[in-house]
């Protein structure tokens, strides 16, 4: 894949969590980057040097048999225009509305051919209001209604716990505990006025699990939480080499049957007969993967994380284990994804 692709950062967060404050901070920081911003309304961010384009959140279902496969038609149009401009951009930031489900934004970069070739999704950053978020995160919605705040946390690669200056230590620890229940995989950065080290948010390659583990080896260590019908995460570490055919079959079946409930999945996998790490990531049923760096002398350990609703740790772990090559007769890879 062409790594001159422009990194795209998606900024989500509930109403009043400080998305626009963070956006303004990113734009005003002296980083020398040309940034294009796609936001919901004109005028929210203010800097002369940035190109700001308004989006209208048009979410379309794809006609591909995948019930949760939706894309943002407005993003495809706007980015199509941006990518043809003479003044090239170093980075694109997409701000979503407070009520938005991040999945269609992420899936747009999986589905659209031109965007896949020109852009890479770098990370989904979710802003959380340390003082008020708990009531949203624990709110029980009526049947068939999603809790958008929970989904935004579930999809996050990084979480900025903002407004800690107005939240008590108890309020902060309560909201952190709730976030960890939902998404134990996303590092949390506490901030006042969205004041976070931008190197923790930009160009982090959060869709590449290897990069995440390089920065945070404990990323997959599971926290103690209750598994129920709420949204949670399951991390799995497993030694041994995987049979690519069994893995494809298992993942295809798993995401096909439960992709609606599995919001995100990422993995670094050791494929039998191949010397390179296989990096895998998915949003709902849409997944992609590629062989990246060589294992070299490092230990070949498979690492997977699933974030979603109704996750069954035992079932996921057992299914994953069954993909391990039972005897060490190497198979030839049919092809690289």
């Amino acid at each position: 894949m062409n790594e001159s692709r422009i990194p795209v950062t998606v900024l989500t967060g509930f109403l009043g969590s400080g998305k626009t404050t963070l956006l303004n901070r990113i734009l005003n920081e002296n980083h020398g980057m040309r940034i294009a911003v796609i936001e919901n309304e004109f005028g929210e961010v203010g800097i002369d040097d940035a190109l700001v384009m308004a989006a209208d959140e048009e979410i379309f279902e794809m006609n591909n048999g995948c019930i949760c496969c939706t894309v943002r038609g407005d993003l495809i149009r706007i980015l199509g225009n941006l990518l043809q401009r003479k003044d090239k951009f170093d980075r694109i930031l997409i701000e979503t509305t407070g009520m938005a489900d991040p999945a269609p934004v992420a899936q747009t970069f999986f589905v659209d051919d031109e965007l896949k070739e020109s852009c890479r999704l770098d990370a989904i950053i979710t802003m959380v209001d340390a003082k008020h978020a708990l009531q949203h995160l624990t709110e029980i919605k009526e049947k068939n209604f999603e809790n958008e705040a929970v989904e935004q946390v579930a999809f996050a690669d990084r979480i900025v716990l903002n407004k800690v200056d107005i939240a008590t230590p108890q309020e902060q620890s309560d909201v952190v505990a709730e976030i960890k229940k939902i998404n134990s995989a996303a590092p949390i950065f506490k901030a006042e006025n969205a004041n976070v080290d931008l190197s923790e948010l930009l160009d982090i390659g959060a869709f590449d699990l290897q990069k995440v583990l390089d920065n945070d080896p404990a990323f997959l260590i599971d926290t103690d939480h209750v598994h129920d019908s709420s949204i949670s995460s399951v991390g799995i570490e497993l030694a041994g080499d995987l049979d690519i055919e069994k893995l494809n079959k298992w993942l295809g079946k798993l995401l096909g049957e439960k992709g609606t409930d599995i919001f995100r999945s990422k993995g670094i996998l050791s494929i039998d007969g191949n010397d390179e790490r296989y990096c895998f990531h998915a949003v709902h049923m849409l997944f992609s993967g590629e062989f990246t760096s060589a294992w070299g002398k490092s230990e070949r350990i498979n690492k997977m994380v699933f974030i979603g609703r109704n996750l069954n740790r035992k079932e996921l772990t057992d299914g994953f284990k069954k993909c391990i090559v039972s005897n060490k007769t190497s198979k030839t890879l049919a092809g690289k994804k």
Partner: protein
Amino acid sequence: MIAVSSPLPMSVDINPIDACSLDDERVLLLDAEGHICEVSLTSHEVTQKCEASVGGNRISLSPNREILACVGPEGFALFKSDDGTLLESRRGSWSSVAKWHESGNRVLFTFGKSICVTDSYGVPIVESENFSSTVTDASWIGDKIAVAAYGGVSVSDEQGSKFIKREFVGSLLCLSASPTGDWIVSGNQDASLQVYKVSDDTRLEMQGFPRKVTIAQFNLDGKWLANNGANEVTVWSFAGKGPKGRSPVILPKHVGGGTAISWSKTDASLIATGDSIGQLRVWDLKLGLEGKPLYPRNHFESMSNSPVKSILWDSHGSSIIAVHNDGIIYRRETS
């Protein structure tokens, strides 16, 4: 005196995304930021014509070549084509289509979720209600208007006021109506082509393209339709009962999908195609066999490896002008 343009490529300092011919020797180019410049293929002179504050998606000249319509991410604008004077503009919504009525006295714009028809000076004649999504394409069918939006194509009455929606599936990216109005075809985000036969409500769907279909164009007499969506351009016969049960003629060996498809305005069987690595070819459908790859009539040496954004036929049908995204422009004789 007939001016003879140089066969050598020339370069402009913008990245054109669309172009149109002022005459056989002068071309107008638009970039994504809304800069519009005039290029003389004879003298190689480049003149900044005007700047559309609405940004740039497409440009379209009136049939008498006097008025230039420009559409962009922030709306649409009309300019005098000789000196670039702004006549009218409307801002506030995405606009991707400007199409002139054959009479030249009206122009159809998409504007966000609606369409707007104005006279040559931008005075509104028709303003529609909102459709189901941002309008992605629109077309005249005689005096009627066909509009593509998510999930359907809506066709108006001859006053352009009352629309009847025909259900299409999914996200429509482009629309083409045959000159007789018998057929309406859309290219789609889900890599398919949907066909609607107006007379009996028949629908067809061609699926399985490897990429989304962004260009679908009928030829001069409406008997052929060409579309991208694969490394080859496919051309479907709409003669007689149409494409049902028939295989397309294949225009092979393009890369990254056809980025520009242009039918000759003088010979209904000639088509020019360009692709994402700058390849440019002309094909003669008279030599084509259904289901078979066609050999190009003209296979030009690449002058740029940048995507071909526009191919313009001259008024005699004897040459084409290729416009690449990196600003390389040249003419090639086809006969």
